[in-house]
């Protein structure tokens, strides 16, 4: 369907954006990559009166490392995440996630800020930032505010952003040599939103013992789901088949998946157990695998 009649304005600085937001209020909606917003406009699922294009605001761009923290500007496109050397070094989970998102042409426009702000429960990046213990940097005319990723996603397509706030960047704490991360998903076709997925990060010491595990599932709830009990089942234990089985069993309490177009809750639970095994088994020691 064609888009509804609508206005368009381009902001080239945050100050100009605040001015436009003050002028148009609730009738305005931010436009970043447009890969979700413009598709929903075509379905007439949203009805803004004016789109405020933020893609030329320099303050929302760029990828840099400072004091060991990786800062990724909100306008960073999925394709850039997939090929940026700093991301590959400091947040390889995001580089691994990028090719799972949609298709090349969509990754060339879609942004991390747009993906986090939209908060689709089946999206990869919200789960990744929770797994990485990242911080969302929100900015408004009142200044900057930092929200832990875990507290940022508050419900189905809901975030902790105030109406006048936007995402400026994501900050990701430094990784250790012992850090391991992985993202895997099950989708019907390459590029589709996942039926279920898992973004995992943990530390593995020289003895093969797990510390600070974070298993974050997507496509199985109203947002990214941090599986706390499965994490607890791994924490402090040597990663072996028994530990993986314990984590799989603990998922029964962590997950309460809704039925959706892909299938009933029990199918999602099954997929979550399969994903847990697939994500963790490559980290098993050779002696375990041979068994």
């Amino acid at each position, binding site marked *: 369907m*064609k888009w509804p*009649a*609508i*206005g368009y304005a*381009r902001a080239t600085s945050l100050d100009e954006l605040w001015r436009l937001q003050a002028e148009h209020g609730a009738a305005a909606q931010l436009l970043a990559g447009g*890969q979700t917003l*413009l598709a929903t406009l075509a379905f007439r699922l949203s009805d803004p009166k004016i789109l405020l*294009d933020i893609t030329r605001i320099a303050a929302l761009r760029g990828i840099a490392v400072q004091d060991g923290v990786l800062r990724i500007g909100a306008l960073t496109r999925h394709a850039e995440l997939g090929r940026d050397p700093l991301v590959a070094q400091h947040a390889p989970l995001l580089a691994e996630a990028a090719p799972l998102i949609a298709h*090349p042409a969509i990754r060339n426009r879609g942004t991390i800020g747009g993906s986090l702000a939209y908060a689709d429960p089946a999206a990869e990046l919200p789960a990744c930032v929770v797994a990485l213990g990242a911080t969302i940097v929100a900015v408004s005319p009142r200044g900057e505010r930092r929200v832990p990723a875990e507290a940022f996603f508050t419900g189905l397509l809901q975030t902790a952003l105030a109406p006048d706030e936007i995402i400026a960047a994501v900050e990701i704490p430094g990784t250790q040599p012992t850090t391991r991360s992985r993202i895997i998903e099950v989708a019907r*076709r390459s590029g589709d939103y996942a039926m279920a997925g898992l973004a995992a990060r943990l530390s593995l010491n020289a003895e093969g013992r797990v510390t600070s595990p974070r298993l974050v599932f997507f496509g199985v709830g109203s947002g990214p789901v941090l599986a706390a009990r499965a994490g607890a089942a791994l924490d402090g234990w040597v990663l072996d088949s028994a530990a993986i089985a314990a984590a799989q069993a603990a998922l029964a309490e962590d997950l309460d998946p809704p039925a959706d177009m892909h299938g009933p809750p029990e199918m999602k639970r099954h997929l979550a157990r399969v994903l847990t095994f697939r994500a963790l088994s490559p980290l098993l020691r050779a002696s375990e695998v041979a068994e």
Partner: protein
Amino acid sequence: MSARIDITLMVNGERVSRSVEARRHLIDFLRLDLGLTGSHAGCEHGVCGACTVRVDGEIVRGCLVLAASLDGAEVTTIEGLTDSAEVADLQDAFVACNAAQCGFCSPGMVMAAADILRHHPTATREEIREHLSGNYCRCTGYQAIVDAVEQTLATRREDRR
């Protein structure tokens, strides 16, 4: 609020200035305002790839880009790509392999395949399939298309030796 937006951009190497409605997407702009009918609007919500064009050197979904946002941009369509002969070998391979899709899908498929030639000169069959995944419908098995891309890549690598 439905005021028009003035834009100046390069389309297939030519400078174009127009005043567009905000609701105009890039494909309608190309087809209706510029008469370039090689790019197609199929689903108009990002799933079919019939609208694949290049903006600033990278392929995009033309149906998910506002023309109004393209002031200063460089756009290349299947017409421009054909005229420049950048992918003449690929197009010949499509014909030789009978790598046919319908007329609606073919230009987008060639745009996506051209992107592989530019960015992934050593792509495997698997990677070719992955890169073209945004242009699949249910009509074909895509074997012949993957053949055509694979052969073109191989020939170009040979020629470079």
